[in-house]
């Protein structure tokens, strides 16, 4: 064994290995519920610098071990799924902030730093990265770059690939690699080939990111639309108008109905102190008062219909109901919600005093009804809580998962309808439309279903797999992209569309940078069966 590898902190302890055995892919929860065995990696390493990462890779080449990079484990697409002979390289000890260059508006950090720690560091110095995934408290910056993550304010600040100016890493040869947008030899092209590579081409160890000054004020508002199409048209027009909203989220009728009614508002337009891009100011992280999930909302609505309150019994009823999605969907069709849009812009007070009313007038001109500050402020307070607890649905035999896809504006409504129809007898489907750009947006589906125990055709596992198969097939048929910001991992490979030339180049690059095919085999459909 290489001398340097011996000095890298590591463990074979089954508990340590169990901690990095998988990410938060919901299918793993179902497998645990069915008491299916967990596959543990052989070893977990915690390298402290690039040299140690390189040493582990070289030793893995010698021993023909697959290497699976691990950040905070908050992925939901089986990006972390080591085999029994694999090593996991947990990068959380690479957590330093190396340089803040206020003149050039950049920050250079190591891959293992948690998102909220970086954002807090920047906020204290008057800057923000502008990247706010709901998992900000439990995901690493390296994980963001590896999966092309998007934050909730992506319409204003862009996705992580728009913020990434340089990437450093160790490839499958054990060599250091580096690409930077301002490097004449590599340029933005090679930065963009490493961003989103999900550990298949290199272990990302460090990155330089673009930062911007913190906005001082915010304007948020909720509105509702008579129809979903009107809401989508309004979103597209807001993006085309150059308003550059930080947040623009449209909830479909069912999601809006489950969230409860908001009365029409005539409250005055207000500009609030504090920009949207401040991680802690709204106490939006894990807390005692959680935002109700889809499952909780269903339970609440069933209780309202039944005019009694026996939460445990109701949860069991809803769990049963999700096992019969055809019936559940027929019942839910009776909820007549109006699509609700949350919109927010940032700037200084004077700027927002001018732009806020203009924005609201524009939305009203497209059929919107003003709901006041309430929906937006509520979203702000709860915007990071969803990532912190397992849905109660799992405790009653049901399951919940999410699927984020992206397409051009003209395809959004047809794709939404098609996915709901395709899954009608498999799951209850909610959707919100966010991460809006000039040329399209992301559709964020939430699926909830059920099924019997075990492995049979009516089991929860089978229904779960069927739901995903149908969803990916539908998304692919509509020409949409199967991942917008969760990554592809292993769970979405079937839905990935690779043109022949694309795949050839990617495979050639994989062979060149990772000749022994040891880096995270299987993600993006690369390196399968190699180790």
């Amino acid at each position, binding site marked *: 064994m290489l001398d340097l590898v011996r000095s890298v902190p590591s463990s074979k302890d089954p508990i340590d290995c169990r901690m990095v055995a998988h990410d938060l892919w919901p299918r793993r929860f179902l497998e645990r519920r069915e008491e299916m065995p967990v596959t543990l990696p052989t070893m977990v390493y915690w390298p402290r610098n690039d040299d140690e990462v390189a040493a582990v890779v070289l030793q893995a080449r010698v021993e023909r071990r697959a290497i699976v990079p691990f950040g905070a484990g908050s992925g939901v697409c089986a990006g972390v799924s080591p085999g029994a002979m694999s090593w996991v390289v947990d990068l959380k000890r690479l957590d330093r902030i190396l340089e803040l260059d206020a003149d050039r508006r950049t920050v250079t950090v190591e891959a293992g730093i948690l998102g909220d720690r970086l954002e807090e560091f920047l906020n204290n110095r008057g800057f923000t990265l502008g990247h706010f995934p709901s998992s900000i408290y439990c995901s690493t910056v390296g994980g963001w770059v590896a999966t092309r993550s998007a934050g909730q304010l992506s319409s204003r600040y862009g996705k992580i690939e728009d913020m990434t*100016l340089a990437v450093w890493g160790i*490839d499958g040869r054990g060599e250091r690699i580096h690409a930077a947008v301002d490097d004449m030899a590599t340029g933005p092209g090679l930065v963009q080939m490493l961003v989103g590579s999900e550990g298949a081409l290199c272990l990302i160890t460090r990155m330089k990111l*673009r930062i911007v000054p913190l906005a001082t004020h915010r304007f948020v508002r909720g509105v509702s639309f008579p129809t979903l199409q009107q809401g989508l048209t309004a979103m597209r027009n807001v993006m085309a108008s150059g308003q550059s909203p930080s947040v623009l989220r449209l909830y479909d009728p069912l999601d809006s109905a489950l969230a409860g009614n908001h009365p029409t508002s005539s409250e005055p337009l207000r500009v609030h102190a504090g920009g949207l891009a401040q991680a802690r100011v709204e106490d939006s992280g894990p807390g005692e008062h959680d935002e109700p999930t889809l499952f909780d909302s269903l339970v609440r609505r069933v209780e309202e219909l039944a005019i009694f309150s026996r939460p445990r019994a109701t949860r069991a009823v809803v769990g049963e109901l999700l096992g019969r999605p055809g019936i559940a969907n027929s019942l839910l069709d009776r909820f007549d919600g109006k699509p609700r849009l949350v919109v927010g812009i940032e*700037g200084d007070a004077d700027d927002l005093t001018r732009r806020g009313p203009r924005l609201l007038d524009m939305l009203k001109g497209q059929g919107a009804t003003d709901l006041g500050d309430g929906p937006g402020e509520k979203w702000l307070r709860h915007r990071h809580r969803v990532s912190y607890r397992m849905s109660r649905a799992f405790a009653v035999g049901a399951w919940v998962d999410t699927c984020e896809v992206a397409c051009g504006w003209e395809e959004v409504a047809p794709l939404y309808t098609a996915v709901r129809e395709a899954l009608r007898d498999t799951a209850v489907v909610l959707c919100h439309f966010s991460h809006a750009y000039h040329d399209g947006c992301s559709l964020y589906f939430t699926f909830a279903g059920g099924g019997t125990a075990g492995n049979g055709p009516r089991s929860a596992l089978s229904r779960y797999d069927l739901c995903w198969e149908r969803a990916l097939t539908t998304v692919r048929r509509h020409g949409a992209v199967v991942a917008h910001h969760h990554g592809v991992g292993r769970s979405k490979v079937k839905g990935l569309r690779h043109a022949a030339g*694309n795949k050839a180049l990617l495979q050639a690059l994989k062979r060149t940078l990772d000749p022994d095919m040891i880096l995270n085999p299987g993600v993006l459909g690369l390196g399968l069966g190699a180790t």
Partner: protein
Amino acid sequence: MSATKTMTITKSTATGSKPARTVIDVAVADDAIMGLVERLRLARVKKTPLLASSIVLPAPPPDDVRSVVIDADNGLADVDARLSLAAIGHRLKQQGYWLPMLRPWSAMPLWRLAMTAPLVVDALIQRGTLVSVDGDVIDTPRAPRHAAGPSLLHGLCARPSPTALLVRAHLRVVPRTHARLVVTDHGSADAAARAFVAVTDAARAVCVEAFGTSLAVLADDHGAVHNDVDVDSDRGSAWGRVSSRVVGSRSIGPGDRPAIVKALCAGQRVIGVPFMQRAGVLLSTTASAAAPSLVDVSTATTLAASAIAAALSRPQESAS
């Protein structure tokens, strides 16, 4: 795509060590793609080396309506990559759209510009149809931003080693009714750079360009006023001296003020596309631009992967 018209492929005689010059003379875009495909496949079968720089795709006729097709829903223009940026800009203007890169535009065809100016690919092109050097037609995914996995559009047609030729592209464009142009002078390169960074920070403008001490910003206006002034129409200003001969680009961080000042002091154009969070310096001399690498059709993909790996593995000190 179908090739319905006759193609004429002519090949001049190779002299000395210079490779043959390939001229693919076709009438419409689809034929151009098929002609290119056939030519490249023929070269692959015959194991004939081809230089990317030796391939010429003549521009389509000016009245070909299919060479610039607007997708108003998504703010995109589906363009024939044989057109120059200058021709595309003028065609867009006729149809009521801005190209998010101000005049003067390069006279270089878009397909060649994509190889040498990565900023153009990075900021302007949402998706592309490419022909690989092995003769395969590749459509990159149509998606806002890049979405899933490594971005192959970048890897295929930009440096260090293009492996495909761009034949059609979906360019991001903006209706002229949604933006107006404002030109301001800031007295010094440093002040202009500060203003440039402020505009990119706000992320609202369609385009911002700095040259000398002045700034041209294309952004929305409170009344959606239409202003038809082009920056180079004012011959008395610095913009009258801007060269349209763009042969390359060097991307920079959109907030990199020192790099902007340095470029402005060196007489270069700095361009930002704030709504895409991109910025770069346009290069107008061949000396500082990376020429497309040799395309060897027999081992193109492997060579490209090796070239990429070599570029990634260079000692970091040599990176600018």
